[in-house]
Protein backbone atom coordinates (compact mmCIF):
# COMPACT_ATOMS: atom_id res chain seq x y z
CA UNK A 1 0.00 0.00 0.00
CA UNK A 2 1.77 3.11 -1.19
CA UNK A 3 -0.63 5.40 0.61
CA UNK A 4 0.34 4.14 4.06
CA UNK A 5 1.94 6.61 6.39
CA UNK A 6 4.46 4.01 7.50
CA UNK A 7 5.58 1.21 5.26
CA UNK A 8 8.20 -1.39 6.20
CA UNK A 9 9.22 -3.89 3.57
CA UNK A 10 11.37 -6.87 4.53
CA UNK A 11 12.94 -4.60 7.12
CA UNK A 12 15.88 -6.12 8.95
CA UNK A 13 18.23 -4.59 11.48
CA UNK A 14 21.24 -6.34 12.96
CA UNK A 15 23.85 -5.19 15.38
CA UNK A 16 27.12 -6.83 14.53
CA UNK A 17 25.58 -9.96 13.10
CA UNK A 18 22.90 -10.37 15.74
CA UNK A 19 19.50 -9.58 14.17
CA UNK A 20 17.18 -7.46 16.28
CA UNK A 21 14.44 -6.96 13.70
CA UNK A 22 13.81 -9.74 11.24
CA UNK A 23 12.10 -9.31 7.92
CA UNK A 24 9.40 -6.93 9.08
CA UNK A 25 6.50 -6.19 6.74
CA UNK A 26 4.28 -3.53 8.17
CA UNK A 27 1.83 -0.92 6.92
CA UNK A 28 0.29 1.68 9.16
CA UNK A 29 -2.22 4.23 7.94
CA UNK A 30 -2.93 7.80 8.93
CA UNK A 31 -5.25 9.16 11.58
CA UNK A 32 -5.08 6.41 14.17
CA UNK A 33 -3.55 5.54 17.51
CA UNK A 34 -1.47 2.40 17.30
CA UNK A 35 0.19 0.42 20.05
CA UNK A 36 3.56 -1.22 19.43
CA UNK A 37 3.44 -3.89 22.06
CA UNK A 38 6.02 -6.35 23.23
CA UNK A 39 8.22 -7.30 26.15
CA UNK A 40 11.43 -5.40 26.69
CA UNK A 41 14.17 -6.19 24.26
CA UNK A 42 12.01 -7.33 21.35
CA UNK A 43 13.08 -4.50 19.10
CA UNK A 44 10.39 -1.87 19.70
CA UNK A 45 12.88 0.90 20.32
CA UNK A 46 14.96 -0.23 17.37
CA UNK A 47 11.95 -0.02 15.08
CA UNK A 48 11.11 3.44 16.33
CA UNK A 49 14.67 4.64 15.86
CA UNK A 50 14.57 3.34 12.29
CA UNK A 51 11.38 5.32 11.72
CA UNK A 52 13.09 8.42 13.11
CA UNK A 53 16.11 8.04 10.93
CA UNK A 54 18.40 7.52 13.92
CA UNK A 55 19.35 4.09 12.61
CA UNK A 56 19.84 2.71 9.13
CA UNK A 57 18.33 -0.61 8.04
CA UNK A 58 20.63 -3.55 7.55
CA UNK A 59 18.29 -4.82 4.83
CA UNK A 60 14.89 -3.98 3.45
CA UNK A 61 13.16 -0.64 3.23
CA UNK A 62 11.37 1.77 5.45
CA UNK A 63 9.19 4.57 4.11
CA UNK A 64 7.50 7.44 5.90
CA UNK A 65 4.78 8.97 3.76
CA UNK A 66 6.49 7.43 0.77
CA UNK A 67 9.89 8.91 1.64
CA UNK A 68 13.06 7.32 2.92
CA UNK A 69 13.83 8.74 6.39
CA UNK A 70 15.61 12.05 5.96
CA UNK A 71 15.10 15.76 6.60
CA UNK A 72 11.72 15.78 4.84
CA UNK A 73 10.35 12.91 6.92
CA UNK A 74 11.86 14.33 10.12
CA UNK A 75 9.90 17.51 9.49
CA UNK A 76 6.62 15.58 9.85
CA UNK A 77 7.66 13.14 12.58
CA UNK A 78 7.58 14.10 16.25
CA UNK A 79 9.63 11.79 18.43
CA UNK A 80 9.56 11.25 22.18
CA UNK A 81 12.45 9.01 23.20
CA UNK A 82 12.47 7.00 26.39
CA UNK A 83 15.28 9.16 27.75
CA UNK A 84 15.71 12.85 28.15
CA UNK A 85 17.47 14.61 25.35
CA UNK A 86 17.89 18.04 26.72
CA UNK A 87 21.08 19.94 26.81
CA UNK A 88 21.64 20.99 30.38
CA UNK A 89 22.75 24.44 29.36
CA UNK A 90 19.33 25.37 28.01
CA UNK A 91 16.45 27.02 29.71
CA UNK A 92 12.79 26.61 28.81
CA UNK A 93 12.84 29.62 26.49
CA UNK A 94 15.85 28.22 24.61
CA UNK A 95 14.27 24.86 23.89
CA UNK A 96 10.96 26.41 22.88
CA UNK A 97 12.87 28.71 20.55
CA UNK A 98 14.74 25.78 19.08
CA UNK A 99 11.56 23.88 18.29
CA UNK A 100 10.01 26.99 16.82
CA UNK A 101 13.10 27.61 14.68
CA UNK A 102 13.40 24.14 13.23
CA UNK A 103 9.83 22.88 13.06
CA UNK A 104 7.27 24.73 11.00
CA UNK A 105 4.48 22.71 12.59
CA UNK A 106 5.38 23.73 16.13
CA UNK A 107 2.62 25.54 18.01
CA UNK A 108 4.59 27.73 20.39
CA UNK A 109 1.56 29.37 21.95
CA UNK A 110 0.09 26.04 22.89
CA UNK A 111 3.40 24.80 24.28
CA UNK A 112 3.85 27.94 26.36
CA UNK A 113 0.35 27.58 27.76
CA UNK A 114 1.02 24.02 28.81
CA UNK A 115 4.33 25.02 30.37
CA UNK A 116 2.65 27.79 32.29
CA UNK A 117 0.03 25.42 33.65
CA UNK A 118 2.86 23.25 34.95
CA UNK A 119 4.51 26.24 36.54
CA UNK A 120 7.46 26.26 34.17
CA UNK A 121 8.78 29.77 33.61
CA UNK A 122 10.69 30.74 30.45
CA UNK A 123 13.90 31.44 32.32
CA UNK A 124 13.90 28.16 34.24
CA UNK A 125 17.09 26.24 33.62
CA UNK A 126 16.48 22.67 32.55
CA UNK A 127 19.31 21.56 34.78
CA UNK A 128 17.35 22.63 37.85
CA UNK A 129 14.09 20.95 36.93
CA UNK A 130 12.93 17.77 38.63
CA UNK A 131 12.92 14.57 36.61
CA UNK A 132 9.13 14.56 36.43
CA UNK A 133 8.99 18.13 35.18
CA UNK A 134 11.61 17.46 32.54
CA UNK A 135 9.68 14.47 31.28
CA UNK A 136 6.53 16.52 31.01
CA UNK A 137 8.35 19.34 29.28
CA UNK A 138 9.69 16.93 26.71
CA UNK A 139 6.17 15.58 26.19
CA UNK A 140 4.77 19.09 25.80
CA UNK A 141 7.33 19.92 23.13
CA UNK A 142 6.62 16.74 21.20
CA UNK A 143 2.83 17.02 21.39
CA UNK A 144 2.80 20.72 20.50
CA UNK A 145 3.83 19.85 16.99
CA UNK A 146 1.09 19.38 14.41
CA UNK A 147 2.94 16.36 13.08
CA UNK A 148 1.77 13.60 10.75
CA UNK A 149 3.38 10.95 12.90
CA UNK A 150 4.06 10.88 16.62
CA UNK A 151 6.49 8.26 17.84
CA UNK A 152 6.28 7.80 21.59
CA UNK A 153 8.76 5.33 23.06
CA UNK A 154 7.56 4.04 26.43
CA UNK A 155 5.90 7.32 27.46
CA UNK A 156 4.38 5.95 30.65
CA UNK A 157 6.99 3.53 31.91
CA UNK A 158 8.19 4.31 35.38
CA UNK A 159 5.78 7.14 36.13
CA UNK A 160 3.27 7.42 38.93
CA UNK A 161 -0.47 7.14 38.13
CA UNK A 162 -1.08 10.88 38.37
CA UNK A 163 1.66 11.59 35.87
CA UNK A 164 0.36 8.79 33.67
CA UNK A 165 -3.05 10.47 33.52
CA UNK A 166 -1.42 13.77 32.65
CA UNK A 167 0.61 12.13 29.90
CA UNK A 168 -2.33 10.26 28.32
CA UNK A 169 -4.50 13.35 28.58
CA UNK A 170 -1.83 15.51 26.94
CA UNK A 171 -1.44 13.02 24.12
CA UNK A 172 -5.16 12.70 23.45
CA UNK A 173 -5.82 16.41 23.64
CA UNK A 174 -2.98 17.54 21.42
CA UNK A 175 -2.24 15.12 18.62
CA UNK A 176 -3.14 16.55 15.23
CA UNK A 177 -6.49 15.21 13.98
CA UNK A 178 -5.17 13.48 10.87
CA UNK A 179 -2.03 12.33 12.57
CA UNK A 180 -1.02 8.86 13.65
CA UNK A 181 0.31 8.18 17.11
CA UNK A 182 2.53 5.14 17.56
CA UNK A 183 2.98 4.27 21.22
CA UNK A 184 5.48 1.62 22.13
CA UNK A 185 5.08 0.00 25.52
CA UNK A 186 5.11 -3.20 27.48
CA UNK A 187 2.40 -1.92 29.84
CA UNK A 188 -0.66 -2.63 27.75
CA UNK A 189 -3.36 -2.46 30.38
CA UNK A 190 -2.86 1.25 30.90
CA UNK A 191 -3.24 2.28 27.30
CA UNK A 192 -5.45 -0.35 25.71
CA UNK A 193 -8.48 1.93 25.80
CA UNK A 194 -6.67 4.53 23.79
CA UNK A 195 -5.67 2.32 20.89
CA UNK A 196 -7.28 1.84 17.49
CA UNK A 197 -4.81 -0.84 16.44
CA UNK A 198 -2.22 -3.00 18.09
CA UNK A 199 0.99 -4.57 16.81
CA UNK A 200 2.55 -7.44 18.73
CA UNK A 201 6.30 -7.62 18.35
CA UNK A 202 8.19 -10.65 19.54
CA UNK A 203 11.83 -11.55 18.96
CA UNK A 204 12.04 -8.97 16.23
CA UNK A 205 9.02 -10.20 14.30
CA UNK A 206 5.50 -8.91 13.95
CA UNK A 207 3.29 -11.72 15.17
CA UNK A 208 0.01 -9.82 15.14
CA UNK A 209 -1.30 -6.57 13.71
CA UNK A 210 -5.00 -5.87 13.89
CA UNK A 211 -7.58 -3.41 15.09
CA UNK A 212 -8.22 -3.63 18.79
CA UNK A 213 -11.92 -4.25 18.24
CA UNK A 214 -11.17 -7.20 15.99
CA UNK A 215 -8.72 -8.69 18.44
CA UNK A 216 -11.24 -8.50 21.25
CA UNK A 217 -13.99 -9.94 19.09
CA UNK A 218 -11.95 -12.79 17.64
CA UNK A 219 -10.19 -13.82 20.84
CA UNK A 220 -12.92 -12.87 23.25
CA UNK A 221 -10.62 -11.13 25.68
CA UNK A 222 -8.91 -7.83 26.21
CA UNK A 223 -5.75 -7.09 24.29
CA UNK A 224 -3.88 -7.08 27.58
CA UNK A 225 -5.08 -10.57 28.42
CA UNK A 226 -4.35 -11.78 24.91
CA UNK A 227 -0.87 -10.33 25.13
CA UNK A 228 -0.10 -12.05 28.42
CA UNK A 229 -1.37 -15.30 27.07
CA UNK A 230 0.62 -15.17 23.87
CA UNK A 231 3.85 -14.16 25.49
CA UNK A 232 3.54 -16.39 28.50
CA UNK A 233 2.97 -19.40 26.32
CA UNK A 234 6.19 -18.75 24.50
CA UNK A 235 8.14 -18.34 27.69
CA UNK A 236 6.99 -21.72 28.91
CA UNK A 237 8.22 -23.24 25.71
CA UNK A 238 4.72 -23.81 24.51
CA UNK A 239 3.21 -23.32 21.12
CA UNK A 240 4.41 -20.11 19.56
CA UNK A 241 2.08 -18.03 17.50
CA UNK A 242 3.54 -17.71 14.06
CA UNK A 243 2.30 -15.69 11.12
Amino acid at each position, binding site marked *: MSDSLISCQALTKSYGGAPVLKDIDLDIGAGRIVGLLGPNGTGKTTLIKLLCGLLQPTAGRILINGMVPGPESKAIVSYLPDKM*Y*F*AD*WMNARDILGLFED*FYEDFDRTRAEAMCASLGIKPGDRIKTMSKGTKEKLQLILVMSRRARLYLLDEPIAGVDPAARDYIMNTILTNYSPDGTVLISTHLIGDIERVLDEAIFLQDGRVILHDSVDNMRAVHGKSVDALFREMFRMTQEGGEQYAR
Partner: protein
Amino acid sequence: MLGKLIKYDLKSYFKLFPLIWLAAIVLAFVNHFTLRHFSEAEASGVAELLGLVLPILVYVAAIVTLAVLTLILIIRRFYSGALKEEGYLVFTLPVKPWQIVVAKAIAATIVTIITSVVTVISVLLLMDWAEVTRAIGELFHGLFHNEYITGGQCAALMAEAVIVGIVGIAVSIYRIYCAIALGHLFNKHRGGMAVLMYIAISIVLSALGSTVVANLIFGLDTNWIDEFLRKISEATNTFGFISLGMLGLFLVSAVQIVIYHIVTERILSKRLNLE
Protein backbone atom coordinates in the same frame (compact mmCIF):
# COMPACT_ATOMS: atom_id res chain seq x y z
CA MET B 1 19.02 25.58 8.58
CA LEU B 2 22.78 25.77 8.77
CA GLY B 3 22.56 29.24 10.25
CA LYS B 4 20.11 28.06 12.88
CA LEU B 5 22.38 25.19 13.87
CA ILE B 6 25.31 27.57 14.19
CA LYS B 7 23.21 29.94 16.27
CA TYR B 8 22.18 27.10 18.56
CA ASP B 9 25.76 26.02 19.17
CA LEU B 10 26.98 29.59 19.65
CA LYS B 11 24.24 30.11 22.21
CA SER B 12 25.69 27.26 24.19
CA TYR B 13 29.21 28.70 24.10
CA PHE B 14 27.98 32.19 24.90
CA LYS B 15 26.41 31.07 28.14
CA LEU B 16 29.90 30.84 29.54
CA PHE B 17 32.55 32.54 27.46
CA PRO B 18 31.68 36.23 27.54
CA LEU B 19 32.34 36.25 31.26
CA ILE B 20 35.75 34.68 30.89
CA TRP B 21 36.69 36.88 27.96
CA LEU B 22 35.75 39.87 30.01
CA ALA B 23 37.68 38.56 33.00
CA ALA B 24 40.81 38.14 30.89
CA ILE B 25 40.60 41.69 29.57
CA VAL B 26 39.83 43.16 32.97
CA LEU B 27 42.63 41.24 34.67
CA ALA B 28 45.08 42.35 31.99
CA PHE B 29 43.94 45.89 32.61
CA VAL B 30 44.44 45.56 36.35
CA ASN B 31 47.83 44.00 35.93
CA HIS B 32 48.86 46.78 33.61
CA PHE B 33 48.53 49.23 36.45
CA THR B 34 49.96 47.07 39.22
CA LEU B 35 53.01 46.29 37.11
CA ARG B 36 53.46 49.99 36.36
CA HIS B 37 53.11 50.91 39.98
CA PHE B 38 55.66 48.42 41.11
CA SER B 39 58.18 49.06 38.40
CA GLU B 40 58.13 52.73 39.27
CA ALA B 41 58.16 52.38 43.03
CA GLU B 42 61.08 49.98 43.56
CA ALA B 43 59.12 47.42 45.51
CA SER B 44 60.55 45.70 48.55
CA GLY B 45 58.96 43.76 51.34
CA VAL B 46 56.72 40.75 51.24
CA ALA B 47 53.37 42.52 51.09
CA GLU B 48 54.35 44.55 48.09
CA LEU B 49 55.84 41.55 46.40
CA LEU B 50 52.58 39.72 46.91
CA GLY B 51 50.70 42.66 45.51
CA LEU B 52 52.80 42.33 42.38
CA VAL B 53 52.81 38.58 42.00
CA LEU B 54 49.22 37.76 42.88
CA PRO B 55 47.52 39.75 40.14
CA ILE B 56 49.90 38.28 37.58
CA LEU B 57 49.19 34.78 38.78
CA VAL B 58 45.47 35.36 38.58
CA TYR B 59 45.84 36.75 35.10
CA VAL B 60 47.92 33.81 33.91
CA ALA B 61 45.44 31.43 35.46
CA ALA B 62 42.64 33.17 33.61
CA ILE B 63 44.42 32.92 30.28
CA VAL B 64 45.26 29.25 30.77
CA THR B 65 41.72 28.55 31.87
CA LEU B 66 40.49 30.29 28.77
CA ALA B 67 42.56 28.12 26.48
CA VAL B 68 41.74 24.89 28.26
CA LEU B 69 38.06 25.70 28.55
CA THR B 70 37.84 26.50 24.87
CA LEU B 71 39.25 23.12 24.01
CA ILE B 72 37.10 21.26 26.51
CA LEU B 73 33.88 22.95 25.45
CA ILE B 74 34.56 22.40 21.78
CA ILE B 75 35.02 18.71 22.46
CA ARG B 76 31.94 18.63 24.65
CA ARG B 77 29.71 20.35 22.12
CA PHE B 78 30.53 17.59 19.68
CA TYR B 79 30.86 14.54 21.91
CA SER B 80 27.99 15.25 24.29
CA GLY B 81 26.12 17.58 22.02
CA ALA B 82 25.77 15.18 19.13
CA LEU B 83 26.65 11.71 20.30
CA LYS B 84 25.09 11.47 23.74
CA GLU B 85 21.52 12.22 24.82
CA GLU B 86 21.41 15.55 23.00
CA GLY B 87 21.96 13.54 19.83
CA TYR B 88 18.38 12.32 20.07
CA LEU B 89 17.33 15.91 19.69
CA VAL B 90 19.88 16.99 17.10
CA PHE B 91 19.65 14.03 14.75
CA THR B 92 15.85 14.13 14.59
CA LEU B 93 15.88 17.75 13.50
CA PRO B 94 14.94 18.13 9.83
CA VAL B 95 18.54 18.64 8.73
CA LYS B 96 21.19 16.55 7.04
CA PRO B 97 24.06 15.20 9.13
CA TRP B 98 26.66 17.21 7.21
CA GLN B 99 24.91 20.39 8.25
CA ILE B 100 25.25 19.39 11.88
CA VAL B 101 28.98 18.76 11.52
CA VAL B 102 29.69 21.93 9.56
CA ALA B 103 27.64 24.10 11.90
CA LYS B 104 29.49 22.82 14.93
CA ALA B 105 32.84 23.31 13.23
CA ILE B 106 31.98 26.87 12.27
CA ALA B 107 30.74 27.75 15.74
CA ALA B 108 33.82 26.21 17.35
CA THR B 109 36.09 28.10 14.93
CA ILE B 110 34.38 31.38 15.73
CA VAL B 111 34.80 30.85 19.44
CA THR B 112 38.45 29.88 19.06
CA ILE B 113 39.13 32.98 16.97
CA ILE B 114 37.55 35.22 19.56
CA THR B 115 39.48 33.53 22.33
CA SER B 116 42.74 34.00 20.42
CA VAL B 117 42.00 37.66 19.76
CA VAL B 118 41.08 38.24 23.39
CA THR B 119 44.30 36.60 24.52
CA VAL B 120 46.42 38.75 22.22
CA ILE B 121 44.63 41.92 23.23
CA SER B 122 45.05 41.06 26.88
CA VAL B 123 48.79 40.58 26.44
CA LEU B 124 49.07 43.92 24.67
CA LEU B 125 47.08 45.58 27.44
CA LEU B 126 49.54 44.22 29.94
CA MET B 127 52.47 46.05 28.41
CA ASP B 128 53.29 49.69 28.19
CA TRP B 129 50.75 51.16 25.86
CA ALA B 130 52.94 53.82 24.44
CA GLU B 131 55.67 51.31 23.70
CA VAL B 132 53.24 48.88 22.16
CA THR B 133 51.68 51.50 19.94
CA ARG B 134 55.09 52.65 18.82
CA ALA B 135 56.32 49.12 18.13
CA ILE B 136 53.22 48.22 16.17
CA GLY B 137 53.49 51.44 14.22
CA GLU B 138 57.09 50.68 13.32
CA LEU B 139 56.24 47.11 12.39
CA PHE B 140 53.46 48.13 10.07
CA HIS B 141 55.52 50.86 8.53
CA GLY B 142 58.29 48.40 7.88
CA LEU B 143 55.91 45.88 6.40
CA PHE B 144 54.18 48.29 4.09
CA HIS B 145 57.22 50.24 3.01
CA ASN B 146 60.07 47.99 2.04
CA GLU B 147 61.88 46.96 -1.08
CA TYR B 148 60.44 43.48 -1.35
CA ILE B 149 56.73 44.04 -1.55
CA THR B 150 54.37 46.90 -2.25
CA GLY B 151 51.79 48.20 0.20
CA GLY B 152 49.04 46.51 -1.74
CA GLN B 153 50.85 43.21 -1.81
CA CYS B 154 51.44 43.48 1.91
CA ALA B 155 47.76 43.91 2.56
CA ALA B 156 47.08 40.93 0.34
CA LEU B 157 49.60 38.82 2.23
CA MET B 158 48.02 39.79 5.51
CA ALA B 159 44.65 38.74 4.21
CA GLU B 160 46.14 35.44 3.06
CA ALA B 161 47.71 34.96 6.47
CA VAL B 162 44.38 35.51 8.17
CA ILE B 163 42.73 32.96 5.92
CA VAL B 164 45.48 30.42 6.50
CA GLY B 165 45.16 31.05 10.23
CA ILE B 166 41.42 30.51 10.25
CA VAL B 167 41.69 27.37 8.17
CA GLY B 168 44.44 26.20 10.50
CA ILE B 169 42.08 26.54 13.44
CA ALA B 170 39.33 24.78 11.55
CA VAL B 171 41.54 21.83 10.65
CA SER B 172 42.48 21.27 14.29
CA ILE B 173 38.82 21.27 15.22
CA TYR B 174 37.88 18.94 12.40
CA ARG B 175 40.67 16.57 13.38
CA ILE B 176 39.13 16.32 16.85
CA TYR B 177 35.67 15.73 15.41
CA CYS B 178 36.99 13.01 13.13
CA ALA B 179 38.67 11.26 16.04
CA ILE B 180 35.49 11.43 18.10
CA ALA B 181 33.45 10.06 15.20
CA LEU B 182 35.90 7.19 14.72
CA GLY B 183 35.66 6.47 18.43
CA HIS B 184 31.89 6.32 18.05
CA LEU B 185 32.25 3.27 15.84
CA PHE B 186 33.12 1.22 18.87
CA ASN B 187 30.46 0.05 21.27
CA LYS B 188 32.40 0.57 24.46
CA HIS B 189 34.93 3.05 25.76
CA ARG B 190 34.09 5.44 22.99
CA GLY B 191 35.89 8.30 24.72
CA GLY B 192 39.07 6.34 25.14
CA MET B 193 38.94 5.10 21.58
CA ALA B 194 38.49 8.67 20.37
CA VAL B 195 41.69 9.66 22.13
CA LEU B 196 43.50 6.71 20.56
CA MET B 197 42.13 7.67 17.17
CA TYR B 198 43.38 11.21 17.61
CA ILE B 199 46.84 9.94 18.45
CA ALA B 200 46.72 7.62 15.46
CA ILE B 201 45.77 10.45 13.12
CA SER B 202 48.56 12.58 14.52
CA ILE B 203 51.09 9.82 13.97
CA VAL B 204 49.93 9.35 10.40
CA LEU B 205 50.20 13.08 9.78
CA SER B 206 53.70 13.39 11.13
CA ALA B 207 54.78 10.33 9.21
CA LEU B 208 53.45 11.89 6.03
CA GLY B 209 55.16 15.13 6.80
CA SER B 210 58.58 13.75 7.35
CA THR B 211 60.90 13.75 4.43
CA VAL B 212 61.94 10.20 5.23
CA VAL B 213 58.60 9.00 3.98
CA ALA B 214 58.80 11.42 1.09
CA ASN B 215 62.09 9.86 0.18
CA LEU B 216 60.63 6.42 0.28
CA ILE B 217 57.78 7.49 -1.94
CA PHE B 218 59.80 9.37 -4.44
CA GLY B 219 62.93 7.32 -4.23
CA LEU B 220 64.99 10.47 -4.38
CA ASP B 221 66.96 12.42 -1.88
CA THR B 222 65.80 15.84 -0.72
CA ASN B 223 67.70 17.71 -3.39
CA TRP B 224 64.63 17.81 -5.56
CA ILE B 225 62.92 19.99 -2.98
CA ASP B 226 65.75 22.50 -3.10
CA GLU B 227 65.63 22.41 -6.90
CA PHE B 228 61.89 23.01 -6.81
CA LEU B 229 62.21 25.97 -4.45
CA ARG B 230 65.03 27.50 -6.40
CA LYS B 231 63.09 27.29 -9.64
CA ILE B 232 60.10 28.98 -8.05
CA SER B 233 62.08 31.78 -6.43
CA GLU B 234 63.60 32.52 -9.79
CA ALA B 235 60.25 32.60 -11.49
CA THR B 236 58.40 34.79 -9.06
CA ASN B 237 58.91 37.83 -6.91
CA THR B 238 58.78 37.91 -3.11
CA PHE B 239 55.06 38.36 -3.06
CA GLY B 240 54.47 35.42 -5.37
CA PHE B 241 56.86 33.25 -3.42
CA ILE B 242 55.28 33.92 -0.06
CA SER B 243 51.80 33.61 -1.53
CA LEU B 244 52.72 30.25 -2.96
CA GLY B 245 53.89 29.20 0.45
CA MET B 246 50.61 30.34 1.94
CA LEU B 247 48.76 28.44 -0.74
CA GLY B 248 50.69 25.33 0.18
CA LEU B 249 49.78 25.70 3.84
CA PHE B 250 46.19 26.39 2.89
CA LEU B 251 46.00 23.28 0.73
CA VAL B 252 47.52 21.06 3.40
CA SER B 253 44.80 22.16 5.80
CA ALA B 254 42.01 22.16 3.24
CA VAL B 255 42.70 18.63 2.08
CA GLN B 256 42.68 17.43 5.67
CA ILE B 257 39.40 19.22 6.35
CA VAL B 258 37.80 17.55 3.36
CA ILE B 259 38.97 14.11 4.46
CA TYR B 260 37.96 14.61 8.09
CA HIS B 261 34.59 15.95 7.05
CA ILE B 262 33.81 13.06 4.75
CA VAL B 263 34.84 10.48 7.32
CA THR B 264 32.85 12.18 10.09
CA GLU B 265 29.78 12.73 7.93
CA ARG B 266 29.71 9.17 6.65
CA ILE B 267 30.01 7.74 10.14
CA LEU B 268 27.22 9.94 11.49
CA SER B 269 24.99 9.22 8.52
CA LYS B 270 25.40 5.49 8.26
CA ARG B 271 26.73 4.24 11.57
CA LEU B 272 25.01 6.42 14.12
CA ASN B 273 24.22 4.43 17.23
CA LEU B 274 23.17 6.57 20.15
CA GLU B 275 23.19 4.88 23.58
